[in-house]
């Protein structure tokens, strides 16, 4: 308790702000010169030395990047792509004219939007202090969320401690006797030594939250927020985005858990199931859900508002809490007895998806068991955004 309090106080001590260009260079180096990266940095964290530049070349350790920079208060957005040197002064002028013509309103809107979407952040260690930048994604593998949380927080604090951490602050001591003369000395302060206080970054200092609780049987996209990013995950959860899953199943047997790992409690034939029949059944299920979507709109079906909501573009999403709703069902792969569906839905959970496969098979007069569930999309975030365990050799410069 005492330790973390002390740490918090020390962290609040303000340091001189590094320049935006230094943060850019350090970030690219810290990420080992990726092909592509995009991040937000707060105006309040850096000194902006690239004001007015919109599209320009940036050289880091021999690699050339095309940078698209835009101010979107409270953030500055940097979009970097690794490309050979080109003359970008025309582009730069064009973007500047465009921004002025729009009075910067889209930029401000982008900034406010981004504050809701940001769910991940990273500290950039410049010689002039630490700056936090923010990201939009994270990933998951087949483990429970609590385990994932422990692993991530453990790794984050371990790796942050490996970096150059804050040195111990010296202590002021008054020595000598009152009768003679007292000497004021600056001494080494053992009370602030990492071996005494514990490592500078501790797991309990890191907050981690997720937008959606993934069951241990589900793998795939999982949006996590670190520290101030936890607010972002809350916003993501509130906004009721649509999730897509790849659900694989197998006809011919059923288990007590309705998942692959359970005890088999029934077997049946499945030769009569064809792609067409499966498709028809899926359509029926989907149509039923579309009808019921109206009930959960939170509006009177006879009213003008309901008419407008239905005739407007986009999906009809439930107004408040609703049971699971399916928006799209597609066959991705059909190879008896195995099949894979793509399910786009809202408010679902693992048990619901397992039941979906089970009920689908019953409608087809057979039995089936779910073999794999993979979340491939969560709102705007897809598998491509998710972080990978291994860096690719090009990124390492091998």
């Amino acid at each position, binding site marked *: *308790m*005492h*330790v973390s309090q002390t740490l918090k106080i020390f962290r609040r001590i303000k340091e001189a702000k590094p320049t935006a260009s230094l943060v850019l260079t350090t970030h690219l180096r810290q990420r080992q010169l990726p092909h592509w990266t995009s991040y937000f940095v707060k105006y309040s964290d850096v000194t902006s030395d690239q004001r007015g530049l919109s599209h320009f070349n940036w050289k880091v350790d021999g690699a050339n990047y095309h940078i698209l920079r835009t101010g979107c208060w409270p953030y500055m957005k940097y979009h970097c792509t690794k490309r050979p040197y080109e003359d970008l002064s025309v582009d730069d002028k064009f973007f500047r004219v465009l921004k002025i013509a729009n009075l910067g309103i889209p930029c401000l809107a982008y900034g406010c939007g981004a504050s809701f979407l940001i769910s991940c952040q990273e500290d950039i260690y410049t010689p002039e202090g630490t700056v936090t930048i923010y990201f939009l994604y994270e*990933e998951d*593998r*087949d483990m429970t969320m609590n385990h994932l949380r422990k692993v991530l927080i453990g790794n984050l604090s371990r790796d942050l401690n490996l970096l150059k951490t804050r040195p111990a602050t010296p*202590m002021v001591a008054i020595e000598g*006797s*009152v*009768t003679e003369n007292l000497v004021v000395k600056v001494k080494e*302060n*053992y*009370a*602030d*030594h990492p*071996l*005494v*206080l*514990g*490592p500078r970054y501790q797991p309990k200092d890191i907050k981690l939250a997720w937008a959606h609780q993934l069951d241990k049987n589900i*793998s*795939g996209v999982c949006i996590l927020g670190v520290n101030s990013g936890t607010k972002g995950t809350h916003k993501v959860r509130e906004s009721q985005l649509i999730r897509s899953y790849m659900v694989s199943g197998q006809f011919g047997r059923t288990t007590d858990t309705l998942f692959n790992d359970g005890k088999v409690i029934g077997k049946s034939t499945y030769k009569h199931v064809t792609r067409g029949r499966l498709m028809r059944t899926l359509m029926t299920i989907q149509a039923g859900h579309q009808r019921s979507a109206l009930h959960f709109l939170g509006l009177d079906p006879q009213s003008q508002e309901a008419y407008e909501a239905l005739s407007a573009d986009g999906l009809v999403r439930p107004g408040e809490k609703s049971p699971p709703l399916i928006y799209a069902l597609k066959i991705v792969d059909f190879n008896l007895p195995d099949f894979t569906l793509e399910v786009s839905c809202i408010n679902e959970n693992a048990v619901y998806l397992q039941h979906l496969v089970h009920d689908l098979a019953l409608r087809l007069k057979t039995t089936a068991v779910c073999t794999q569930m*993979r979340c491939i999309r969560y709102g705007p975030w897809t*598998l491509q955004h*998710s972080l*990978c*365990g*291994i*860096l*690719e*050799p090009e990124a390492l410069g*091998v």
Partner: protein
Amino acid sequence: MNLLKEFETRDVLAPLKDTHEIDLVSQEVRPTFNLAAYINRSATLQEMVRLGVDISKWEKRKGISSYILKLDLECDMKQHLMFLRDQGVKPEDLGRWLTINPLIFREKIEDLDARINYLKAVKFTSDEIARLISRNPHWLLFSTVRIDNRLGFFQRSCDLSRDEVRVVAVKEPRLITHNLHHIKRTSIAVTEEMGFDKNEMKSLMLSTPKLWIAHGPSLLRKFDYLHNEMGLSHSVLVKFPKILQSREFRIKQRHQYLKTLGRAQYDPQKPNYVSPASLVEGSDLKFCSDIAKSTVHDYNLFLKTL
């Protein structure tokens, strides 16, 4: 103490007899949550930090803080530190050693000498003793009788000769002082649940004694996957015991990747043989280029489909 009592009873406004008395007045020491509050006053603790001891780990253990504060460097600790140095604990290792086992200062030097003499009597060389002590800081807390019982237990349970027990002990010094119930449980798992025979268990014990202090359920799961899913026989596992030590997800991911590439071929008689040892060795970069003969990019894409 008398001085303090006198201070309390004396009139506050009366002039001081001796101005030096002010020097003795200092802030009182209050109860605290951690040792950091005391360290600037305690030369002993400061010396420990200079040795590299992680005091923050000490204070997490119950009773250690109050025990350590009462010790004095000169009379309680110096002899023990000298003893450890003489027995071959490296000075740069001493901090880690004391972090793990601060209770060593409770033992008498004569007892510690007797324990070392016992090890010499059962023919451990001085290099081996240095390894036993520095790799397993808790070893010296065990009395000669207990260590003797435990060495005997390993000799009996796995049918080892005296030399072989020594080899096992030196290879994994933590094994001998480990919880015996856990050791017995693992032995049962190896013979009954996994189905290794007596000789195979003995060779596993000689090659990788570390398996016996591994987490039991996870070891069983790994064996189940290696034997039933990947089809590696008992004799192959005994030949490549390293694979049982590697992490479960690593084996699974790599095997599944090789399977999708059609390279999961662990039979040395056939072409395109992949040695089970090389499956778990090395970084993912090396695995992709040498074993899977593909790129890390493809491997990453594959991992996202699991």
